[in-house]
C-alpha cells in the first residue's frame, strides 16, 4: 500500500477514492431517481406505480436493469457498426463526468489531510460543466445517424439543433453568476453564497430600501434572489439539454416513434436511459450549486461534515422533483416554438441580463444610476419575456408566407 502511495502520492490516492465513491453514489442515485419518477408520476396520476419489488417497489429499477442487461443485443443491418456501438457510451460518459465539478459538501479533515468534498475544484469549473454538456450531444447525434434509418436521423437532427440553441442560452445564463462571484470555480461560487442576504450591499445607503433589506437578513444569500432571471434561463435550458418533457422532441414518440432511440435495445438502450437520468441529476445539482447555495445550510456540531452533504442532497432532490413535475404536467412544444423560445426569448433575455448584472456590479457607477438601470432593464426584460410570439397573432396568408418565413430561414 505504502509503495503505491509513494509512487502516486497521497493526492492521487484521494482522487481515485473520490472518483470511485462519487460515481458509485451517482449511479445509485440514478437508479433511485428512476424509481422516484415512476412513483411521483403515478402519484400525480392517482396510480400506485411500481410496488412489487422490494419495499415500495424500490428494486423495480434494478429488475428492469437486469432484464435489459440480459436482453439479446440487436443491431440493424443498415447501422454503422462502430458508431452505433459508441453512441450509448458517448451519451452516458459526459453526463457522468459533468458531476466532477459539483461540490457536494464542505471540506473534510482526516488527521492532517484536508479533503474537499468535490471531485475536482477546477478554476474553470463552470466551463468544464458546459464542455461536458456540449459533448453530451454526440451520443444522440451519433445514435440517430448510426442507426441508418429515417426516424432516428430526424430525431438526432432535431436534437442537434435544439442542443446547440439551448447550450448558448445556458452558457450565457452562467456569465452573470461568474460576474458576481468573480470566479468560474464551483466551490468559489458556493462559498460566495454563504451568509445572508443582509450582506448584499446593493441597497446600502438608500433610505427606505436599506431598512426593508434588513428584513432579508435571515434569508440565505443565495444567487437565486439577485440572479433569478439567470436561474430561469438556466433551468429551462437545462431541461432542454436533458431532452426531457416539455422539450423531448428528439424522442417524441407520437411523431418519431422513439427518435434516436428507435433502433436501440438491451444494454445499449439502458445506457441511454441511464445517461438521461444522470443528466437530470447533474443539472439539478448544478442548479443547486449555482443558485441555491450548494451545500449551504444550518449545520450542527454532530457530524458537522455531514450536514452540508445532507442539505445538498435535499435541495437536489427538490429539483429532481421539479423535473418530474414538468414531465407530468407540461405538453410537448412544437418544434418551431422550441426554436423561437430558445433564440428569440432565452438568448436575448440572457444577453440583457448579463448587461444588467454588469452595470449593477460595476464599481464607479453611481448607485442611483445602477438602481435605475436595474429597474429599467428589469421591466424591459419582463415585458420582453411576457410578450408572446407575434406570429401567432395574425393568420398566415399564402401571399405573405415568403416574407414571414424570412426571419427563421
Amino acid at each position: 500500500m505504502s509503495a503505491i502511495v509513494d509512487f502516486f502520492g497521497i493526492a492521487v490516492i484521494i482522487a481515485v477514492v473520490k472518483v470511485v465513491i462519487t460515481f458509485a453514489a451517482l449511479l445509485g442515485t440514478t437508479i433511485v431517481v428512476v424509481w422516484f419518477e415512476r412513483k411521483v408520476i403515478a402519484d400525480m396520476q392517482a396510480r400506485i406505480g411500481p410496488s412489487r419489488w422490494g419495499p415500495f417497489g424500490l428494486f423495480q429499477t434494478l429488475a428492469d436493469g437486469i432484464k435489459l442487461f440480459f436482453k439479446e443485443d440487436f443491431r440493424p443491418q443498415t447501422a454503422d457498426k462502430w458508431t452505433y456501438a459508441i453512441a450509448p457510451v458517448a451519451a452516458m460518459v459526459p453526463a457522468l463526468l459533468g458531476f466532477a465539478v459539483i461540490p457536494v459538501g464542505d471540506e473534510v479533515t482526516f488527521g492532517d489531510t484536508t479533503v474537499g468534498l468535490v471531485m475536482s475544484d477546477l478554476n474553470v469549473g463552470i466551463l468544464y460543466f458546459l464542455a461536458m454538456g456540449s459533448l453530451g450531444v454526440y451520443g444522440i447525434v451519433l445514435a440517430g445517424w448510426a442507426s441508418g434509418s429515417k426516424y432516428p436521423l430526424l430525431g438526432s437532427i432535431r436534437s442537434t439543433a435544439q442542443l446547440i440553441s439551448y447550450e448558448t442560452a445556458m452558457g450565457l445564463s452562467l456569465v452573470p453568476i461568474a460576474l458576481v462571484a468573480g470566479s468560474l470555480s464551483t466551490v468559489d461560487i458556493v462559498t460566495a453564497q454563504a451568509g445572508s442576504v443582509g450582506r448584499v450591499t446593493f441597497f446600502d445607503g438608500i433610505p427606505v430600501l436599506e431598512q426593508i433589506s434588513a428584513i432579508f437578513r435571515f434569508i440565505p444569500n443565495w444567487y437565486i434572489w439577485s440572479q433569478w432571471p439567470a436561474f430561469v434561463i438556466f433551468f429551462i435550458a437545462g431541461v432542454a439539454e436533458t431532452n426531457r418533457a416539455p422539450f423531448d422532441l428528439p424522442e417524441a414518440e407520437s411523431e418519431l416513434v422513439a427518435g434516436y432511440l428507435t433502433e436501440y435495445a438491451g444494454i445499449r438502450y439502458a445506457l441511454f436511459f441511464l445517461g438521461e437520468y444522470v443528466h437530470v441529476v447533474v443539472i439539478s445539482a448544478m442548479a443547486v450549486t449555482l443558485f441555491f447555495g450548494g451545500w449551504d445550510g444550518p449545520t450542527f456540531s454532530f457530524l458537522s461534515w455531514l450536514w452540508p452533504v445532507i442539505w445538498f442532497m435535499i435541495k437536489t432532490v427538490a429539483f429532481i422533483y421539479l423535473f418530474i413535475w414538468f414531465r407530468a404536467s407540461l405538453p410537448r412544444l412544437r418544434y418551431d416554438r422550441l426554436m423561437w423560445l430558445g433564440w428569440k426569448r432565452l438568448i436575448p433575455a440572457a444577453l440583457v441580463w448579463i448587461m444588467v448584472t454588469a452595470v449593477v456590479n460595476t464599481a464607479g457607477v453611481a448607485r442611483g444610476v445602477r438602481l435605475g438601470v436595474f429597474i429599467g432593464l428589469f421591466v424591459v426584460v419582463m415585458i420582453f419575456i411576457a410578450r408572446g410570439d407575434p406570429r401567432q397573432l395574425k393568420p398566415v396568408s399564402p401571399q405573405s408566407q415568403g416574407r414571414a418565413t424570412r426571419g427563421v430561414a
Partner: protein
Amino acid sequence: MNLAQEFSQPEVQLGGIAPELLLVGVALIILVVDASFGRGDNRWYLAGLSALGLAGAAALAIMTWGDNELQLSNMIAADGLAAFSKVSLAAFGLLTVLLGRDYLARDKIEESEFYALVLFAVAGMMLMTAAADLIVMFLALETFSVSLYVLVAFRRASLASHESAMKYFLLGAFSSAFFLLGIALTYGAIGSTNLYGGADPVAEPGIANFITGTPTDDLSLLIVATGFLVIGLGFKIAAVPFHMWTPDAYQGAPSPITGFMAAGTKFAAFAALLRLFDASLFPLRSEWRPLLIVLAVATMIAGSVLAIVQEDLKRLLAYSSIAHAGFVLTGVIAANDRGVSGALFYLATYGVAVLGAFAVISLVAGRDEERVLLADHRGLFYEHPLLTTALTLFLLSLAGVPVTSGFVGKLVVFGAAVEAGYTWVVVVGVLTSAIAAFFYLKVMATMFLQERDPDAPALPVGRLASGVVAVAAVATIGFGLAWSPLINAAESATIFFQSPQEQSAPIPPGG
C-alpha cells in the same frame, strides 16, 4: 470580489480605428434600417448611407494624416501607411457600392446585406493595413475574407458563383491555417506577436522593428515563421503558387465584387506585407528577399503566360491580377522608400483601373453575367464607343503604357528595384509586361477590330455605373499625367519604414 479593482484599464485611443468603427457602425445601421422598414423596391438610401459612411471613413482617415504613433496597447499603428491605405480602400469601397447598386438593381438581387458586407470587408481591410500586431492582422484578414466569401456567392441564381465561393473559401481557410502557423512560430521565436516589439517607434526610431527587441541572435525560428507568413499572405495577394483560387473566384463572383477583390484584397494584403517585411522584418531582409524574389518571378511569369489562353474576360483579368501581384512584389523586394511608396501608388492606381474595368465588364455582361466571354465584346466599340474607350484606357493602364497611371506605377516599383540593385528581377518584370501586353491587346483588338455580333442585346447602361467608369477613367489618366500628389502622399506613408540612418544610406544589393 470585484474584478475592476485589480484591473488596470487600458488606455483607449480611438483615433487610429475611427474609420473602421464608423464603417462597422454604418453597416449595423444598414442592417437595422433594412430590418425595420419594409422591403420597398427602390432602396437607394441604403447605397447612399454606405457611400456616406465610406466618405466619412475616408475623411476620418485623412484627419489622422501625419499621425505617427502606436495606439491601443501597440495593437494599431496610426501612421502614414495606414492613412494612405484607408483612404484608398474607402475609395475602392465607394466605387464598389455605387457599381453594386446598379448591378443589384439590374439582376434583382436583394441588396441590403451587400452593402453591409462590403462595409465590413472595407473595415477589415483597413484594420489590416493598420495592424501593428499579427493577431490583429489575422483577425482583420478573416473579417474581410469572411465577408468576401459571402459576397462572392452573392449571385444566388448562379451555380458558378457558389462554386467559386466554395473554392475561394476552402483555399482561403487553408491559407489562414498557414498564416496562423506563422504567427504561432513568430510568437515562439520572440514571445510576442507585436510587429514593433512593443517599443515606441517614434521615441526610438532605431527599434522600429520587432527583432531588435529580441534577446537572442538565433532567429532561425523567426525566419521559418516568416516563410509561413509569406504563404498566408501569398494566398491573399494571389502570388504563384498560391494563386489557384484567383481565376475561379474572380470568374464566379459578381463583377463589382470581383473588382473589389482585385483592388481591395490586394491592397490590404500588400499593405500588411509592406509593414511586415519592409518595416518589422527589415533587418532580416537578406533572409526573406530570396523567397520573395522567387515568388515574384514565378508570379509575373505564370500570371502573364496563363492569361494569354483565357477566353473569359473575367478570368483573363484574374490572371492579369496575378501578374500585377508580381509587379508590386518587386517594390516590396526593393525594401526602400521608393519601393514602398511605389507599391502603394501602384496598388491604388491599379485598384481604380481594375474597378473601372470590371465596371465596364459588368455592364457588358448584362443580366446574370451572361456575356463575359471575350467573344461577347466583339466590335463593342461600334456600339458603345465611350465605354470601349474607357475600357481600353484601363487596359492600357494595366499594360503600363505611358500617360496612364499604370505606367507610373510600374516605373516607380521597377525603379525602386533597380535602385536596390535587383535589375534582373526588373528584367523579368519587363519581359512579362511585354507578354502581358499581348492579352490586353487581344481584348482591345476584339473590341475595336472585329464586327459586332448582330444578336447581341442592347446594353442598358446605369447612371451610377457609368459614373464609376468615368471617375475611374479620369483618375487613370489624371494620375498618369500628374502623379506627384499621389506619390507624395504615398511617400508620406513610408515614415514608419526605416530608421533615419538607413534612409540616408543606399541599400547595398542583396541586402
